[in-house]
């Protein structure tokens, strides 16, 4: 923390023992006991750029996939696309489809994991439930073993598709500049088709759970739509030629607080549109729209803060490319009061709309006559140079920008990850939630703290991308400081 000269009290959510990927929420109170300000800080991984410099640029899809144990597929795919640009090579159509097929399967698995294991517990088990029950075990206790089994089957099946093409379980190695290292046999294709059909059924089941558990509960709907969890921001997402979200490719589109398009550009031009503001208290930079400018951690049309990830992707689009997802998209907006939706907690529902789209897209691609083609690689012949790759990671727009020398050694790399884009919005969300929920004399209870956590959990922030360690999750500690910076309360959440 920097020593800002403000008279505040401080609440801090901070881990004592770092097991892995700790996050910290610091909340400062004023003399009246109200929230002055709240900050969310994530741990820093150091030296990535230096680590990459001088390495053969074609190794970056494997190296960058190692940044994160949760979304290696996103980094791998983005890096592979950046290599297409670095080597100035266009992959054959079948290779692009195979990449997107792998990516669609990954999306089903990742979104399902978040909905059932992470975001879901807050709603299915309830925000005030004891922490020990607010997890996937608690969710299955509530929705039943049969649905639990379907969740696990869907995860296992879609992981199988990723492994089928990815070549290596967990960390794919299939991406090559100009294509992909492995295609699908007819037998594998048929298997993917079968898995995709099951994934669509799983998507329908998940929609039903949204209906039965969340939408049927007026308290939850009120919570989702409450001003505490709303921000009037810009939204950015990758869209196809019809302005439908596409996770693998397209142009970046930005809409304003009314849903009106204010920018649409090829990802390679991102530096013309996205600036990065630096705050002394956070190692993570704060991206903002250059055309609007940085105006602090505030929302509204005069603040360049924009959001990415599921809610932003839906807001930045004109509809979905597949029928079931489109129907759910329409219901999403008609239920929540029209477009765009500013309610952060609606992100969980938006994620389900996307899950359905990913499953439908997986089926489309598995039935594409070209998908078993063996023409899956264009061999690069040009001298390598500079290249940008973009995909939609589950956590938002992911940008890899590489500069290679003529021997294809990396000179420089620049990465902007989904959590990075959302950094300003996450900070605002925590601030607002804390202000709305902590008032004079309020005892900070477990349920209250979890509600603040819900504000950032919706973004599914990637914290140091290292969740493999024991116990593989993020401990939090809440410390409350008074206006003299004395610790007045500390709560630990493992």
């Amino acid at each position, binding site marked *: 923390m920097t020593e800002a000269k403000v008279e505040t009290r401080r609440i801090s959510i901070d881990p004592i*023992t*770092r*097991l*892995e990927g700790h996050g910290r929420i610091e909340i400062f109170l004023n003399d009246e006991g109200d929230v002055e300000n709240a900050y969310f800080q994530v*741990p*820093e*991984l*150091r*030296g*990535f750029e*230096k*680590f990459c410099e001088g390495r053969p640029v074609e190794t970056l899809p494997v*190296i960058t996939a*190692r940044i994160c*144990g*949760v979304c*290696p597929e996103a980094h791998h795919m983005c890096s592979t696309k950046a290599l297409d640009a670095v080597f100035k090579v266009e992959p054959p159509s079948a290779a692009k489809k195979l990449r997107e097929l792998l990516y669609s399967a990954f999306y089903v698995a990742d979104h399902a*994991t*978040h909905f059932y*294991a*992470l975001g879901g*517990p807050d709603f299915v088990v309830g925000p005030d439930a004891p*922490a*020990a*029950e*607010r*997890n*996937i*075990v608690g969710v*299955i206790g509530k929705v039943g*073993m049969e649905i*639990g089994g379907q969740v*696990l089957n869907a*995860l*296992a099946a879609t*992981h199988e598709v990723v492994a089928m093409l990815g070549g290596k*379980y*967990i*960390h794919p190695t299939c991406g090559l500049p100009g294509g992909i290292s492995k295609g699908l046999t007819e037998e594998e294709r048929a298997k993917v088709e079968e898995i995709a059909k099951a994934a669509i059924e799983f998507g329908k089941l998940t929609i039903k759970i949204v209906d039965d558990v969340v939408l049927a509960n007026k308290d939850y709907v009120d919570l989702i739509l409450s001003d505490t969890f709303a921000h009037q921001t810009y939204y950015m997402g990758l869209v196809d030629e019809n302005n439908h979200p596409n996770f693998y490719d397209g142009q970046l589109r930005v809409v304003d607080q009314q849903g009106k398009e204010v920018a649409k550009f090829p990802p390679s031009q991102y530096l013309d549109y996205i600036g990065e503001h630096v705050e002394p208290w956070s190692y993570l930079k704060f991206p903002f729209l250059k055309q609007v400018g940085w105006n602090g951690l505030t929302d509204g049309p005069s603040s360049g803060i924009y959001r990415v990830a599921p809610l932003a992707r839906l807001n930045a689009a004109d509809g979905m490319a597949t029928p079931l997802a489109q129907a759910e998209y329409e219901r999403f907006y008609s239920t929540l009061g029209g477009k765009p939706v500013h309610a952060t907690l609606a992100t969980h529902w938006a994620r389900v709309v996307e899950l359905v789209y990913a499953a439908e897209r997986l089926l489309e691609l598995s039935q594409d006559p070209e998908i078993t083609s063996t023409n899956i690689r264009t061999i690069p012949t040009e001298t390598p140079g500079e290249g940008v790759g973009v995909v939609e990671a589950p956590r938002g727009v992911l940008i890899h920008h590489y500069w290679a020398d003529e021997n294809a050694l990396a000179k420089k790399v620049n990465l902007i990850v989904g959590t990075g884009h959302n950094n300003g919005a996450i900070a605002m969300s925590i601030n607002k939630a804390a202000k709305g929920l902590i008032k004079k004399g309020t005892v900070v209870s477990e349920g209250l703290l979890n509600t603040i*956590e819900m504000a*950032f*959990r919706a*973004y*599914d*922030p*990637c*914290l*140091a991308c*290292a*969740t*493999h*360690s*024991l*116990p*593989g*999750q*993020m*401990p*939090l500690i809440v410390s409350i400081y008074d206006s003299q910076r004395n610790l007045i309360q500390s709560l630990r959440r*493992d």
Partner: protein
Amino acid sequence: MRTLILGLGNPILSDDAAGLQAARQLYELVGGEDIDLVEAAVAGMQTVQLLSGYDRAVIIDVMQDEARVGEVWRLDSDELENVSSTSSHGIGVGQALRLARLMGLPVPEQILIYAIAAADTSTFGESLTPKLRQALPAIVRRIAADLAGPSSQG
């Protein structure tokens, strides 16, 4: 009895690779027909998928604890099962095991979890810090002794 040695960690994040390296060395020391080695950087349900089909599993991971670098603890999986999820994503190994058992999935009857104390798990690099590197062989021998001894039976 089929045994899986599972090293968890990130091979390019300095000491975070200690679990992977220890698993590899352990495998070299005790590996045989009934013992498999897997190195991974994952949590939660994917870990359970890796464990499926084995009678016994040895999971080796890393904990950041600069004061006790080079020490190793054996954790009871019950301890982990009581830890709740506040993670932004990914569920814990313990919770995943609890879930797997709840759902009747095949998980090993014996699961030995080791945590190695590490100094630096947040700087990109391909080597361990010196103190941990020196301590690793002793850590591996300690785990190997556990596997051979009566404590592994319970």
